[in-house]
């Protein structure tokens, strides 16, 4: 079986690019200072396809509609372009998929999410300013025993 997956949200991509695994231990790639994915890496594209799904075929047959036009067996295929960045440093290279990071299908945080973050931030700062007895106690403890 495959080892546990290390997933991370796409907003952390630029930081994550600096890390890689050797014997399942995280190490730094030691990339040059001011490394920029967009500037230092070459862009590649890969064309894949997305055909009429099973769900759509079922819905169409239930509603008595004609199968999707064209294609074989009522399939209609659309191309989907995936973007990749190939970074070379020294004699090593690595690829980063940037489909949702740049280009047409870029993910942007929704307005709702940004509002939530904006609401959350002042609350945090207040908490830090006022202090908390429990937190102070924990701080006092960490003077003797480090967090690690």
């Amino acid at each position, binding site marked *: 079986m*495959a*080892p546990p*997956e*290390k*997933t*991370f*949200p*796409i*907003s952390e*991509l630029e930081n*994550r690019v600096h890390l*890689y*695994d*050797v*014997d*399942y231990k995280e190490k730094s790639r030691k990339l040059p200072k001011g490394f920029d994915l967009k500037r230092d890496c*070459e*862009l*590649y*594209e*890969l*064309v*894949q*396809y*997305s*055909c*009429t*799904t*099973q769900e*759509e075929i079922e*819905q*169409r047959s239930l*509603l008595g*509609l*004609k199968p999707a036009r064209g294609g*074989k067996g009522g399939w209609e*295929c*659309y191309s*989907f*372009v*995936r*973007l*990749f960045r*190939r970074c070379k440093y020294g004699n090593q290279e*690595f*690829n*980063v*998929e940037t*489909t*949702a990071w*740049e*280009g*047409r*299908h*870029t*993910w942007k*945080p*929704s*307005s*709702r999410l940004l509002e939530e973050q904006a609401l959350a931030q002042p609350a945090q700062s207040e908490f830090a300013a006022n202090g908390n007895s429990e937190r102070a106690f924990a701080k006092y403890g960490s003077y003797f025993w480090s967090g690690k």
Partner: protein
Amino acid sequence: MSIGFAILGALRRTIDSGLLRLYRYRRVPLYFFAVGASGSLFREYLFTIDGATGPSMYATIPDAANFLCVNRMYGKGHGIKVGDVVQIASPIFPKQYNGKRVIALPGDYVLRSKSYSVAPGGAPVPGITDWKQRIEEEKVAAGQAVASSAGPVELMKSLAEDSHEEEEWDEPEMIQIPEGHVWVEGDNLAWSRDSRFFGPLPMALIKGRSSWFADGLFSFSSLKPGRGLRKIEKEELDAVLGVDIVSEAE
């Protein structure tokens, strides 16, 4: 003397008899074995030609009635690059082989989409993700059943809501491929059971690189590595990364 001639005559007769004549062909089974063994070696370590069916690579490779030539020298992932079409032993079904495309190598980063997802990253793509709307439109065009029941005002309202709806979707997740594994996905994203389903694939399950396919007797097509990833030159950058021309015009 006469006894000596008799012995010689008997010897000659035995040599001419069938039993000893067979002795000349004693190596024939060995030849058969050698041909079979070298054929097996060729099939196992150089090239395998076999029939292939299934929709997971459709549009690149036909889903029925075609033959694949697999280069076994790339077995266990030796010399595999991103964009190669490989033949893998399925990690979920014993004795089954699948053709898939390598999306990422150890240490690379890919989008972790859900299995059978139609578009990587979950972005709304015209044509791919708006099929429900398309069905609704076809329903209206076919029988006007919806239009009569909902009324023109409500229909206009729903249309207006659709057009003003902000294109928002959940934050896509990415994954870094562990050592000794690859990420494979079929070209037909909606019909492929691949790494999005079973996670990173151990490189030992790669049987070879599919180099040619034949969908007829004399219609061979190449699947060479250059066909997978295409490098984008500086002049094309704006066209590829730029905003969708259709959405801009609207």
